């Protein structure tokens, strides 16, 4: 099947994807970590995403083939086993330049010495800071000294200092964690005379060292396994720290290295690839003393950070250490992101710079004109006095000719008007974000009870982006679902048993087995169906009973689960914990145990199952692992009654192909119906079959199996053939329904997000069927949706299916004329589309010209589901959207496979749950549950965005108003930039007089309450439409600041025009009026007044008055006592009142008019909030009327 494209209004899982996927050691759930879905294709199409990812997905056969040839020397690293100096020597001999890295890790950015220069360098990468530095330097020139030298440096120094302090603290914490990490110790084989394992700190471990890990030890570096406590060379590791998967994975030591341990003088040279960041790939060979070569693959390596589990010890040789380890190479840290608002802000800053430049040019030009006009008078003007007569000869005093004077005036104008570009805004924004982060982390609604985790802000500079998200890219496993599989129901022998009740030990009894004087019982309870339980116990010899027994025996036997016996506080009781790579298998084994088929022990040769109280030993004669080609796995079991049986379990569509349809047709039909029901409930289904093998059959198989598994070339293919040969003519036993448990509140959260106009895309490594069934259960997909499914295996097929899909999209859009008119009205009768695409197709689409078409289709669809995607493809999909639209993207995930997507998206959110910390480390924000997205985006995001947007505009406005007051005054000073407002007030204006109210309002103001925002998700649209910060608002701001500056300047000017007022007195009036006007302007825009808002706004007006008085109490300043003389008159107060009212009235009119006649959604909701408060009954009536429709 090349392409599968069709209309499915039927919710049942669509036909499977086919094509072959490499058969490495993969288990059903394992596929979420595969990088490239099809390596044989990826080899021929170098277009796919990342290059390093290639190696990991090589098929086994390829890897075997590769091991036959040498790694080219220049790409290789030689590791002499047990000989670290020798290894370093080998590296030097190969001319690699830098030898292998030591094992010490360093994540800190600075050292004590390098802190100052590096930190300053990083800070000055902000253009704004350079601007302020230039201004401060200019001010140091005597001709330009507008402000006192120290005073002009103060604001910049303050900003730099605060930021440096913050950086230093963060770096200190990194250093501390580095130190902890470096000082852990592991057992390392000592030097040769007396080889013994001695503890050694991690930082001293070198490549080539042989390390011994004990149970639960973390690996200090990436190491190749040499031997383990298990005779077959298996070691189980938990890779939680690395890729976030919490289940055990098996790693193997090669047979060749098992026998001779390094203590006995084992020697060899490992030739491996250079360090790279692909955690799923490793390619090396081991040359033994005899010249024999053994190939090594990803299953032979234990990576740094993995913990050894369920294995007494393991010995390995370090091949990559320190910063070369895969985990370190992968933790490059989140690239620093800049918020959308800040990017937008740069545009306006540029505009303001032009404005500033224009003002400076006007002033200096007019000054030049004035000088030319008065050229002949300059000599005798008392206030100019061009010449200095004091020294015997006459010389010009501070006069450099008109051109030079004009230039100096220009530079001075830049200094005087500098706060047009608000320096305090940058520090205010940092503080506001800090405050917002504080409230986000303290929000009890974002606290996850089950994992005891708070919300965490890891990136402090993109808070406001949370209010503008348009696309959410979500991982499935662990994000939407809990990654906890739960057995729900089964159909056995054509009878549906889905009447499971909540398990209660007393009622149904979980099965506990007696071992000696101890009781062992499974750790997890599974609900059981009483009918089925009864049938198992009492059914005895009936056909149904036999079938049921076989079914559960199959569940208990046909898997790769390892039972672990755990101690409990009660010495008489032990818990059986089933560990394995596949959560599905775990669920099935727990289910079998609950029904009385308890898997007790597994060794490489046999398993022990407690069958309804009777312990039986089954020999595992053969095991065909799961591969995505066959989509099933099988075991061949030698039963206690000497029969040999084949048990197979697999996906329904693969199983029905190998089931013998000639017998039990009724059962097959019934099972199919039940399966259909299960999958429409969103359950993952597996079909179980069996066959009794005759002796000849078994022997044939055995010889074929042995031949295949010892083959040097194409082992995987041969094994697959053997498996396919034996897995046929099966007798159906039944099927299981497993629930991939959704996290709490996911469907509701998705519904809320959808209403908020956010598109949710799910990107998962899971199978298409699983993805779709989860899509249904979390209400992402609905039955009314038309599904477009694309899975193709070549570029041309992709192109074709994209074209078909596009055509269909267009047709459907035409069919529903509502589509264009009501993009906002969700579900208002238009046909909704869902695009389902798989990783295979994406290989051909991403980074080719087909991208455009995919995006075209995807943007028409309401839901996009990408299944079987590799981590880098996830990032590719995010990039696809990010680069083509202006909309904000958010990626949320929990595993290492989500890291690339989290870093790619504008906002990355890590779910910190049972899985590891990798996603969290790469994320900008982390939290415990998917559903927290709703309060995070709809409430905090909305608040942050509107606060920050307003704050930036307000800062532009208030500084512009003040600068314009200074500007108007130059017209009355012969354009010489004298400021009536004292220099101290000028400097303090943006730092002290007006900064704090904006910060407090930026942190605390709420336009709408949490309840309203959650109840009406549509209100989120304000951020998506950039309603709070756009060019229009910016221009309105500037117009308002021009008007207010005119009022502030000219009302006092006309009042005092013919009076004896001195410069300082009038300057004080202007300063006070400006501060009061901008604060009242702010006060009018505050939505919610609590005591802090009151305190800060009125307080800062008061503080300004006090500051002005203090400044005017310093005798050597020209303004000495001026404010007191001015304030003593009634005229002053009358003038001030008039100034304020004249300045503020237009804003009031504008606000009253817009609020009433052109209200935004937010305004309406605010009125409703207030209104509802007044009249409870009325509100409920309105709500009923308005919201019953949507």
């Amino acid at each position: 099947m090349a392409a599968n494209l069709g209309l499915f209004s039927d919710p049942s899982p669509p036909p499977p994807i086919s094509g072959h996927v490499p058969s490495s050691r993969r288990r059903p759930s394992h596929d979420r970590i595969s990088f490239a879905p099809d390596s044989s294709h990826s080899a021929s199409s170098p277009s796919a995403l990342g290059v390093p990812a290639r190696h990991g997905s090589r098929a086994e056969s390829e890897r075997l083939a590769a091991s036959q040839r040498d790694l080219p020397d220049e790409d290789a690293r030689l590791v002499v086993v047990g000989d670290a100096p020798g290894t370093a020597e080998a590296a030097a001999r190969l001319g690699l330049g830098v030898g292998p890295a030591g094992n010490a890790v360093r994540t800190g950015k600075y050292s004590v010495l390098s802190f100052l220069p590096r930190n300053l360098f990083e800070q000055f990468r902000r253009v704004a800071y350079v601007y302020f530095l230039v201004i401060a330097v200019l001010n140091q020139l005597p001709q330009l000294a507008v402000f006192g030298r120290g005073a002009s440096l103060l604001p910049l120094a303050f900003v730099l200092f605060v930021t440096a302090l913050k950086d230093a603290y963060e770096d200190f914490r990194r250093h501390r964690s580095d130190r902890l990490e470096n000082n852990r110790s592991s057992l390392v084989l000592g030097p040769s005379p007396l080889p013994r394992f001695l503890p050694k700190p991690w930082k001293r471990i070198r490549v080539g060292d042989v390390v011994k890990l004990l149970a639960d030890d973390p690996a200090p570096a990436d190491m190749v396994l040499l031997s383990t406590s298990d005779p077959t060379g298996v070691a189980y590791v938990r890779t939680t720290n690395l890729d976030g998967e919490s289940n055990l994975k098996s790693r193997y030591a090669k047979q060749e290295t098992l026998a001779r341990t390094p203590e006995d003088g084992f020697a060899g040279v490992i030739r491996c690839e250079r360090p790279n960041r692909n955690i799923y790939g490793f390619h090396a060979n081991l040359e033994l003393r005899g010249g024999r070569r053994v190939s090594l693959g990803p299953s032979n390596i234990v990576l740094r950070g993995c913990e050894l589990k369920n294995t007494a010890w393991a010995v390995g040789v370090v091949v990559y250490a320190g910063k070369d380890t895969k985990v370190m190479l992968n933790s490059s840290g989140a690239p620093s992101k800049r918020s959308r608002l800040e990017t937008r802000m740069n545009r306006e800053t540029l505009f303001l710079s032009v404005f500033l430049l224009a003002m400076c040019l006007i002033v200096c030009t007019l000054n030049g004109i004035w000088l030319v006009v008065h050229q002949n008078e300059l000599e005798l003007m008392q206030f100019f006095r061009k010449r200095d007569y004091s020294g015997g000869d006459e010389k010009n005093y501070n006069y450099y000719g008109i051109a030079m004077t004009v230039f100096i005036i220009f530079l001075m104008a830049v200094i005087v008007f500098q706060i047009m570009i608000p320096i305090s805004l940058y520090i205010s924004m940092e503080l506001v974000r800090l405050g917002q982060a504080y409230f986000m982390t303290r929000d009890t609604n974002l606290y996850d009870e089950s994992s005891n985790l708070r919300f965490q802000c890891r990136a402090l500079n993109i808070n406001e982006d949370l209010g503008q998200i348009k696309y959410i890219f979500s991982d499935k496993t662990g994000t939407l679902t809990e990654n906890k599989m739960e057995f729900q129901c089964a159909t056995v022998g054509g009878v549906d048993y889905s009447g499971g009740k909540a398990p209660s030990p007393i009622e149904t009894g979980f099965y506990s087995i007696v071992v000696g004087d101890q009781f062992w019982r499974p750790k997890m309870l599974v609900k059981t169906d009483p009918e089925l339980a009864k049938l198992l116990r009492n059914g005895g010899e009936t056909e149904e009973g036999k079938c049921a027994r076989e079914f559960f025996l199959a569940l208990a036997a046909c898997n790769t689960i390892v039972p672990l016996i755990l101690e409990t506080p009660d010495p008489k009781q032990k818990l059986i914990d089933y560990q394995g790579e596949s959560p599905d298998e775990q669920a099935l084994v727990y289910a079998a145990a609950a029904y009385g088929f308890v898997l007790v022990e597994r060794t490489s040769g046999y398993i022990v199952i407690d069958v309804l109280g009777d312990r039986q030993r089954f020999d595992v004669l053969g095991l065909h692992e799961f591969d995505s080609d066959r989509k099933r796995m099988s075991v061949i079991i030698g039963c206690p009654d000497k029969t040999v049986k084949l048990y197979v379990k697999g996906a329904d569509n693969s199983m029905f192909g190998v089931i013998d349809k000639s017998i039990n047709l009724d059962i097959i039909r019934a099972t199919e119906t039940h399966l259909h029901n299960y999958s429409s409930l969103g359950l993952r289904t597996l079909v179980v079959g069996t066959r009794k093998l005759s002796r000849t059959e078994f022997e044939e198989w055995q010889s074929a199996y042995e031949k295949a598994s010892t083959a040097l070339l194409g082992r995987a293919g041969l094994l697959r053939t053997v498996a396919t040969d034996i897995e046929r003519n099966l007798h159906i036993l039944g099927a299981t329904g497993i629930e991939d448990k959704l996290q709490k509140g996911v469907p509701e959260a998705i519904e809320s997000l959808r209403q908020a106009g956010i598109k949710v895309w799910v990107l998962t490594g899971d199978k298409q069927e699983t993805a779709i069934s989860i899509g249904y259960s979390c209400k992402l997909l609905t039955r009314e949706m038309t599904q477009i499914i694309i899975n193709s295996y070549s570029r041309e097929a992709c192109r074709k299916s994209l074209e078909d899909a596009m055509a269909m999209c267009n047709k459907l859009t035409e069919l529903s004329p509502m589509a264009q008119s009501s993009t906002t009205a969700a579900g208002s009768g238009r046909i909704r589309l869902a695009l389902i695409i798989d990783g295979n197709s994406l290989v051909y689409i991403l980074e080719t010209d087909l991208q455009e078409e995919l995006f075209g289709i995807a943007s028409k669809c309401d839901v996009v589901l990408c299944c079987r995607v590799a981590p880098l493809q996830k990032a590719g999909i995010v990039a696809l959207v990010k680069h083509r639209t202006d909309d904000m993207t958010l990626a949320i995930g929990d595993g290492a496979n989500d890291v690339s997507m989290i870093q790619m998206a504008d906002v990355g959110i890590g779910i910190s749950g049972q899985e590891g910390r990798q996603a969290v480390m790469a994320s900008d924000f982390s939290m415990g549950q998917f559903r927290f997205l709703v309060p995070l985006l709809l409430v905090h995001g909305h608040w942050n965005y509107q606060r920050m947007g307003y704050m930036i505009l307000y800062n532009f406005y208030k500084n512009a108003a003040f600068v314009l007051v200074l500007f108007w005054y130059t017209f009355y000073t012969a354009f010489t930039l004298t400021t009536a407002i004292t220099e101290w007030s000028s400097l303090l204006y943006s730092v002290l007089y007006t900064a704090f109210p904006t910060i407090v309002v930026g942190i605390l103001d709420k336009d709408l309450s949490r309840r309203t925002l959650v109840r009406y998700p549509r209100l989120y649209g304000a951020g998506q439409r950039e309603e709070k910060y756009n060019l229009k608002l910016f221009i309105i701001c500037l117009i308002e600041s021009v008007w207010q500056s005119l009022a502030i300047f000219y009302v006092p000017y006309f009042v005092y025009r013919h009076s004896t007022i001195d410069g300082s007195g009038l300057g004080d009036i202007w300063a006070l009026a400006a501060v009061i006007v901008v604060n009242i302007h702010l006060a009018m825009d505050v939505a919610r007044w609590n005591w802090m808002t009151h305190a800060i706004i009125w307080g800062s007006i008061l503080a300004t008055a006090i500051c002005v008085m203090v400044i005017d109490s310093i005798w050597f300043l020209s303004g000495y006592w001026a404010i007191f003389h001015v304030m003593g008159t009634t005229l002053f107060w009358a003038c001030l009142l008039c100034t304020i009212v004249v300045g503020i009235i237009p804003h009031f009119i504008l606000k009253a008019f817009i609020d009433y006649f052109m209200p935004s959604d937010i305004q309406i909701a605010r009125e409703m909030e207030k209104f509802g408060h007044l009249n409870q009954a009325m509100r409920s009536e309105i709500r009923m009327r308005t919201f019953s429709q949507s």
Partner: protein
Amino acid sequence: MNSKAGSTFGSDGATDSSAARRNSKKPKYSKFTQQELPACKPLLTPGIVISTFALIGIIFIPIGLASLSASEHVVELVDRYDADCVPQHLRDDKLAFIQNSQTNKTCTRRLIVPKQMSSPIQVYYQLDNFYQNHRRYVKSRSDKQLKSKSSERETKTCEPEGTTGDGLAIVPCGLIAWSLFNDTYSFSANSKSLQVNKKDIAWQSDKKHKFGSDVYPKNFQSGGLIGGASLNASIPLSEQEDLIVWMRTAALPTFRKLYGRIEVDLEANEEITVVIQNNYNTYSFGGKKKLVLSTTSWIGGKNNFLGVAYLTVGGLCLFLAMGFILLYVFKPSNLISWLYCGLSLRL
């Protein structure tokens, strides 16, 4: 969906859960951290808008009327004399006239009092086009030198009037002091001289704290270029009130400075004779000189602007109040209809 399945048995006993509670990172609830502080939510409802405008109107119109009437009660007499005080034959070259120390600068002006002026009558001189706020000018002073005798040499900021040619410090130094206004006025009415009280024309704060009582003028106006008045070297700076007034530099290029006070009432239509010593050179840059006699009120001198401004704003606000009432009536977009139409269409 079952609720209990999947839960773990055994280890999570009572001890465990209490430990969990102890280690819980659950943020403590407080109204502050949950951003739920009690707050008032002002909204610009029609009632508030209309009453705000009405209130401003009601407050502003009386204030405007009061200021206008106060301004009306001020009697102001302004006489520009810079052009007329140059003898007819020298008017072509005023600069030569003013620079020549030999010419007679005395000038007599007759003024008619328009209305009854009650004492104290402020006598101002007004200069136009004189940029006392010019950057070169305002910087050219030394507050330290003015304040104390010991800082006599602190003349660095005073250039180009810091030191004499011989390097002696000028006290008071700087362009501002150097350019001290030196026209003098003497008044007589009905051939009886009117005393001008020149005491307390400067701010007490300046006299006490800015100008030292032990600082005496030194080397003042001794350079090649005389800028204005000279000072009596035997009077300390704190007593030189004309200087103190002059050194409070004006905010705007047109400014008045207090010359003195006449402390008798002047009757309407009374003729006052002013003898002016026209010494100060504003001819070089075309600056005007005016003599101003004015009574005072609470709004200072004669100034209709404030009254007019208040009346305009008040009137405008009343008008706006009316306008908004009309708008609200004709476009009855009351809350319920907005809630109904707005939300149902958009939310």
